[in-house]
């Protein structure tokens, strides 16, 4: 069993235009830089993306946006991305904003075989519009459905050829849930280790969820709050 592919380009070579793609990361933290670059290089178009944020102007998913690859996006926060704001206000991109916790849980549910669940979040707000509500006990809840994707592009710290993954600090974020919720999961890692080197008690994403592993290179990892202050030059 060897899931390692040699290049990021190879890892995303069969992603079709029009696919639904989940991308891990919170802001610019824990994003699959190399896979995004390869996808931009391939210029697939009409993608339906699911990701908490959408990078910033000039980095991360911002690069996909600038390359005109994204038709629609589901996320919780897209501040700090002026190009996106402009596209949405001009109605050139279909943006769905949902609460961050509901987004995370919907993705987890997609991987866990749970088609729908109730949450208190968003009751009485625009995110509950058109959704079923239901009183359970003494509180009213909103029905939310699972999210799945054709492809998940995720970023981990270390991994082995079986696809076992561990994450580093807050770069974990949405990556483990997304790994479970797509037909094809491609994991970009910083360091490849031998099976057995990761303590099995510490594995966060078991290999069963991962189809391909690629070792990334030349990480930039800008810190978003500084990147924006310095106008993208960080």
């Amino acid at each position, binding site marked *: 069993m060897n899931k390692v592919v040699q290049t990021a380009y190879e890892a995303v070579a069969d992603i079709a235009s029009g696919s639904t793609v989940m991308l891990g990361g919170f802001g610019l933290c824990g994003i699959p830089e190399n896979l995004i670059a390869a996808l931009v290089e391939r210029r697939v178009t009409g993608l339906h993306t699911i990701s908490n944020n959408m990078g910033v102007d000039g980095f991360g998913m911002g690069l996909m946006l600038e390359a005109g690859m994204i038709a629609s996006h589901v996320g*919780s926060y897209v*501040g700090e991305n002026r190009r996106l*704001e402009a596209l949405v206000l001009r109605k050139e991109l279909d943006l769905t*904003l949902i609460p961050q*916790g509901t987004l*995370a849980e919907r993705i987890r549910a997609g991987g866990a075989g749970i088609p729908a669940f109730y949450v208190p979040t968003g009751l009485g*707000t625009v995110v509950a519009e058109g959704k079923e509500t239901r009183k359970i006990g003494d509180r009213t809840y909103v029905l939310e459905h699972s999210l799945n994707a054709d492809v998940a592009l995720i970023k981990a710290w270390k991994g082995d050829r079986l696809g076992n993954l561990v994450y580093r600090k807050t770069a974990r*974020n949405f990556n483990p*849930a997304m790994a479970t919720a797509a037909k094809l999961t491609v994991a970009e890692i910083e360091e490849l280790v031998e099976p057995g080197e990761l303590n099995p008690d510490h594995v966060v994403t078991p290999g069963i969820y991962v189809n391909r592993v690629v070792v990334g290179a030349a990480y930039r990892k800008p*810190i978003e709050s500084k990147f924006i202050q310095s106008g993208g030059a960080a």
Partner: protein
Amino acid sequence: MTGKERIARRIAREFRDGFYVNLGIGLPTMIAEYVPAGIDVMFQSENGMLGVGGPPTDDCADPDLINAGKQPVTELPGCSFFASEESFAMIRGGHMDMSILGAMQVDENGNLANWTIPGKMVKGMGGAMDLVAGARRVIVAMEHQTKDGTSRILKECTLPLTGQRVVHDIVTELCWIRVSAEGLVLTEVADGLDAAEVQARTEARLLVSPDLRVMTVNASA
């Protein structure tokens, strides 16, 4: 002492030893600096960390270690990291003692609006809707009026809501207001002000607590 600092210092006095608290972006983040001595408070950041420490020195910033405001932070001993769905299970499940966040508008029913201005601002609610729906106590920390002097404490919010009937307390540089079933109750006013003066700067109707006190602020951290 600025108004923002006064708000941060006053709210920090609410902390009890062993509290788990989520601080929103902006003003609420300042509160971490004023935790009273002898009190252990664990701060959560909804991107997946419990036990958030202060900012690092510039050359020690780790891009894999940020808070929900995307600012670099540090680790405190006993901190832990977890995934987003686990972070929000923690928040939604009622495990946070307190969630403190900013607002654009709050109203007499405890409704909160802090995430969007239709047609103008496309940012997203991030984790705010989850935080107000899940925390045991939701405190709004904000300046009492907008820069042009408009009240942020309204009879009814006009912006799209973040949460319906979710706010427990409103703290501004002028006062502490408790949200009750009867309406907004003024419980503390800043030194030198009285209830009438606060009401004059507030659109919502304020009930005055029979125990109205001066809002005291610890000068030292």
